[in-house]
């Protein structure tokens, strides 16, 4: 049974991505008691699945390492993974938060030696590669996973595979009898940092994501370029593993569209510009990128990066929202159809691979937040009547990493303002 100490001075942060970690750390490093809740088995969130950041092309795991070290060093911060918030009642300074905790089937004895992973044969889709690869059903989510502890997929519990895992563990770390539990904790303030999810590309029917293997999303492309990814960093296309050197990047795939997401997702333009450089890095002169766009939104000094990419002879820009994608029957090459609106030129261009710059929608839509809140029509959180509930990062708006961290830091301060009030009442 999980033991959690929380009082009305505790700040509960929901979501262990970069926004949640930041909010939790900044508050904790101001001397506040913080409980960080994460739904999955590991911290890191969506940025841990990116290969590089724009505009520096540095690696997200580099910042993650620092944040994890801060978490390990912090006396005030407690992390709870595999935990979901099902209910929040109360008001500013006095909340009661109900948590559903799913079993990991692995206890703190785990040394991450990997014996169970070797023993088990059953494989499952690897969610950390968006299902582009398989992984063992006893697994360490990824190399930077925290807590650094294995997880058993529920599918093998109660099967011979589960038994294999248990048998393989010398340290009694595997506990097949773990059950889901419900916890209720107190909190003075809540920071909601549940982040974003990519818009379901299959809904954008003209682009045939559900029909053509060589039409993928921008988040999947990040995995293709990542050395930890399904191809070990080789930019190869799904249908035949052929090196994809001629790639179309389609902007506003779901964003700025009354039929899909009404808002602009802000990051997609920069993400595609960045990804053209992955291609450059991988294939040099042979790399051919075409960016189909409505407006390139490279705001503030991101413009520098845009100019750099504009100067890359391997990258073409076409001002057009493509009408549809067709597939060449034999080669399975995607063919992008549309009109370049700068002077009205029609095109039907063949590519090795199409990357849809999918839009950003809140992972937990406003309506599904288990608390009374005000959200906009896209589901981003604006405020809560109860006064001590704040949104941070992409739960609050379509933001890039830098702005998410700003938002999370601001959120931490607002939460501190609440709990210090409740110190006073109790003091």
């Amino acid at each position, binding site marked *: 049974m999980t033991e959690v100490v929380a009082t009305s001075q505790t700040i509960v942060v929901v979501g262990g991505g970069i926004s949640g970690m930041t909010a939790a750390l900044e508050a904790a490093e101001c001397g506040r008691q913080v409980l960080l809740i994460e739904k999955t088995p590991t911290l890191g969130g969506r940025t841990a699945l990116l290969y590089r950041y724009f505009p520096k092309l540095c690696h997200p795991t580099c910042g993650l390492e620092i944040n994890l070290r801060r978490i390990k060093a912090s006396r005030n911060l407690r992390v709870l993974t595999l935990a979901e918030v099902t209910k929040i009642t109360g008001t500013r300074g006095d909340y009661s938060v109900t948590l559903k905790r799913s079993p990991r089937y692995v206890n703190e004895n785990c040394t991450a030696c990997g014996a169970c992973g070797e023993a088990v044969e059953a494989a499952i889709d690897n969610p950390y590669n968006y299902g582009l690869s398989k992984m063992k059903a006893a697994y360490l989510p990824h190399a930077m996973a925290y807590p650094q502890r294995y997880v058993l997929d529920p599918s093998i519990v109660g099967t011979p595979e589960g038994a294999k895992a248990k048998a393989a563990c010398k340290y009694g770390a595997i506990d097949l009898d773990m059950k889901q539990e419900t916890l209720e904790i107190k909190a003075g303030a809540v920071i909601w940092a549940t982040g974003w999810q990519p818009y379901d590309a299959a809904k954008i*029917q*003209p682009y*045939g994501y559900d*029909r053509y293997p060589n039409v993928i999303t921008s988040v999947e492309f990040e995995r293709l370029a990542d050395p930890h990814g399904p191809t070990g960093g080789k930019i190869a296309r799904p249908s035949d593993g052929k090196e994809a050197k001629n790639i179309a990047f389609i902007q506003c795939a779901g964003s700025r569209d009354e039929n899909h997401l009404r808002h602009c997702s802000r990051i997609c333009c920069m993400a595609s510009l960045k990804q053209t450089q992955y291609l450059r890095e991988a294939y040099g002169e042979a790399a051919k990128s075409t960016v189909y766009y409505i407006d390139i939104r490279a705001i503030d000094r991101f413009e520098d990066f845009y100019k750099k990419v504009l100067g890359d002879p391997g990258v073409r820009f076409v001002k057009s929202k493509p009408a*549809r994608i*067709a*597939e060449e*029957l034999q080669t399975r090459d995607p063919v992008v159809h549309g009109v370049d609106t700068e002077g009205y030129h029609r095109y039907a261009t063949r590519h090795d691979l199409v990357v849809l710059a999918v839009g950003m929608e809140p992972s937990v839509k406003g309506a599904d937040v288990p608390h009374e809140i005000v959200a906009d029509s896209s589901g981003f959180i604006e405020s809560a009547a109860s006064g001590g509930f704040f949104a941070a990062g992409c739960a609050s708006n379509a933001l890039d990493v830098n702005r998410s961290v700003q938002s999370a830091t601001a959120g931490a301060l607002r939460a501190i303002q609440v709990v210090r009030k409740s110190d006073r009442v109790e003091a």
Partner: protein
Amino acid sequence: MTKEYAFYPGCSSQLRGSASNYLTSVNSMCATLDVKMTPIPDWNCCGASIGYAGSGELARHVMNARNFALAEEHLPGQDVVASCAACWLGAKETKQKLDASSQLMADTNEALKQAGLQYKGNTTVRHMVEVLIEDLGYEKLGAPVVKPLEGVKFAGYVGCQTNRPFGIAGESFENPLYLDKLVETVGGEALTKYEQKVTCCGGALAFSEPEKSQAQIKDIVESAYDQGADMIVTPCPLCQANVEVYQADINKRYGTKFAMPVAYYSQLMAVAYGATPKQAGLDGHVIKPTKLQEIAVKVVPAKK
């Protein structure tokens, strides 16, 4: 028990019309399914999308509203069901516009008064296919099958106006699947990868600029061949006519050897339900749907 609808067959489907065999097969199909279609008395043309240059906005709506008014009066409580894509589209658009604007409603009734009619706004507009899928469902549609269309490969050509802008609930604009499901329901083989299923046949230009529409039709038929289709099946009389009738001209124009039969879903169902070739309107084709013919003439022991 019998389902009843106010039937709006439309000009092309009427007796001696270019799609009269569609009507024939629909009647046969409905008889089997115990669906009673009562034509709206003295119904008139919807004006179709192509009539725009002369019609303007209001006149078009008034034409459709007249049919609604007649249906309200003579067939109260019954949904207006169109079998023709254009009629359905035109009627449905009018219905939406009138619902949305009291102004337009008033203007429309002011005009209708001249014909001694009034539209109260209670009509619901449906497509024959909606009736089949939504009111009966695939299971019911499969039940009466006595001659499954085994071994016949169908390219499901949905076309434009049955599919856009309204379409059938739950289906996508780019890749609707209901036609394939109907084919499978009656035991045929649906070529689900047929990628021309929603390509426009250029109907509106068929007469005025045949070369343009025939270029479209060529792709539609060609890809049906590529997929190994025995015939094309469609829910739209205009698509049927265009895609079937001009194959000879296309052969002349492009040196192709097209002879791809184009049938209605209703003909497939009628045949599968045991209708004679005549009842299924198979005699109404320029390119004979031989495979259907063969099945239709087969004698099978009546279902117990």
